[in-house]
């Protein structure tokens, strides 16, 4: 309860500062609009449903790309984490690819898939796979050998050993990778949507620039931040915490 009050106070103060700075008139309001204008722009977007359409488009892409990336990432992580030779080869490649900004995959995606959803999905997948695969591989490598031994003496081997022991034991680490991967994927999605007429949130942002409508730009940025916060707070953090508590890694 106290945290909520603190949070509310902080954001109220932030809005107040913003409004005060705008009132001083240091910058013209077409470059630095106040909260009132921004919320007006937001209301406008909500009223003509463009915002909902953009959010729906972006989220649909994200969910699709993220799901594909999870499957590939966890599969790849299993492979790297289980086979020593794979860690020394594919693992090193993944570490190298980590230095590549997600958006650097877009030109490749555009050439392969053209100006369409395929290219954006490609960027999301490339952004997410890496962190999920690395975290999965880490998790699997760090499964206490004792768990495997105990399971083996009880007759578990092969697929059963993986499904019942190795994957569950690695799940906290995999969850951390998923949480990290989601932010990478979200970044990649917005960045990708900015580059062509994609009708998502990123496109709405670019449209604001093209119309020199700073209020719209800021409104869309706020929406992106808000969605990010909601996903983090309502989906990924609780999920991660639940796993960590159940696994006894965090006090309930």
């Amino acid at each position, binding site marked *: 309860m106290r945290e909520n009050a603190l949070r509310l106070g902080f954001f109220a103060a932030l809005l107040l500062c913003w409004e005060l700075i705008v009132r001083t008139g240091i910058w013209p309001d077409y470059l630095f609009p106040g909260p009132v204008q921004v919320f007006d722009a937001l209301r406008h977007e909500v009223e003509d449903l463009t915002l909902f359409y953009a959010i729906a488009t972006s989220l649909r892409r994200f969910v699709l790309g993220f799901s594909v990336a999870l499957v590939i990432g966890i599969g790849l992580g299993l492979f790297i984490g289980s086979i020593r030779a794979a860690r020394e080869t594919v693992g090193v490649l993944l570490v190298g690819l980590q230095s590549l900004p997600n958006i650097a995959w877009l030109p490749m995606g555009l050439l392969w898939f053209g100006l369409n959803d395929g290219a954006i999905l490609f960027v999301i997948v490339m952004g997410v796979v890496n962190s999920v695969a690395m975290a999965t591989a880490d998790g699997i490598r760090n499964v*206490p050998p*004792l*768990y495997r*031994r*105990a*399971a*083996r*003496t*009880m*007759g*578990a081997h092969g697929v*059963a050993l993986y499904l*019942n*022991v190795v994957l*569950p*034991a690695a*799940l906290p680490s995999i969850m951390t990778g998923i949480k990290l991967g989601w932010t990478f994927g979200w970044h990649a999605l917005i960045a990708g949507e900015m580059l062509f007429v994609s009708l998502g949130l990123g496109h709405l942002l670019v449209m604001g620039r093209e119309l020199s409508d700073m209020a719209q730009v800021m409104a869309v940025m706020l929406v992106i931040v808000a969605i990010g916060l909601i996903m983090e707070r309502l989906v990924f953090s609780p999920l991660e915490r639940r796993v960590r508590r*159940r*696994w*006894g890694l965090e006090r309930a």
Partner: protein
Amino acid sequence: MTPPAAVTPHATVDVRRQQCPYPLLMIKKALDGLREGEVLEAQTDHLPTVRETTPRFCRDMGYALRVIEEPGLWRLIITKGSEAPKPVSVTLDGVTKRYRSSGGMVTALDDITLEILEGEFVCIVGPSGCGKSTLLNLIAGLEFPDAGSVKIKGHPVTGAGADRVVIFQDGALFPWLTVRQNVEFGLKINGVEPQVRRDLAMDYLKMVHLTRFADSLVHELSGGMRQRVAIARGLAMDPDILLMDEPFASLDAQTRDLLHVELQEIWAATSKTILFITHNVREAVCLGSRIAVMTYRPGRIKETFSITHHRPRHLEDPGLIDASAMILKALRSEVDKAMKAELGDA
């Protein structure tokens, strides 16, 4: 200091080396003259005789043996029994295991020969690093010997099997499962129906007095409770052999004493073969029907002791105190060696 023999012997035979070239033959002759239930005391100053007596008379003939050590002398108290000889469960024959370590090759186990009979409770004591856990892993099928053979009921060990369950020092319970799900784990892996394995799990949880905690998570339990769950999980598989690798080493003394009593009850109720690794001589004396002392690097079996003291055993019992003094004496030089090696002046 001589512990009182439980019963006065019906006959005595002196098989000290000076008077007796064939000690085992002499003991056998003396035993032949006795009726079932009668007791023979054999006196020897020859360690191999002591070692040979156990397999010869306990295994082949099913007699009970108790060894009392005195300065320069062992008194073997043999009770002639009518039990059928017990079949062999585990056979280690000339087992050698080497490891590559930073300081070169280490011979963890050197030419170990040991037989464990069905239903026997064998404790292996030795200083840390003497290879006793390796010995257990070889029997579990988690590792394989460089020389010699490990057999279970006459069949060579080719890998881990559900007839041998290992109970590890920290339990190795799976934290993502509840207590009951942990106990069910082995059954689930082996395809037992959900309702059946649930009932079995509850039965074994009852045996270790943990039914109330069936739906708790592992990290909500104390160390002693976790070890109980591990024991229940092992028993639920209904293995022939329980391999226990210092299972109570990290518990406090009170909990350990309690679990000693419980484990003896479980052993009596289930008649499982148990191999129990420990560095704690008192623990070994309290639990084992036979105790093997291992040497430090290379790991060999230095001496075995049969403890036929009645159960449940209490450590205050003078007979047990004498037995542990005897074993400690055999162990002391090995612990010294291990300490020296650890401190780096060996």
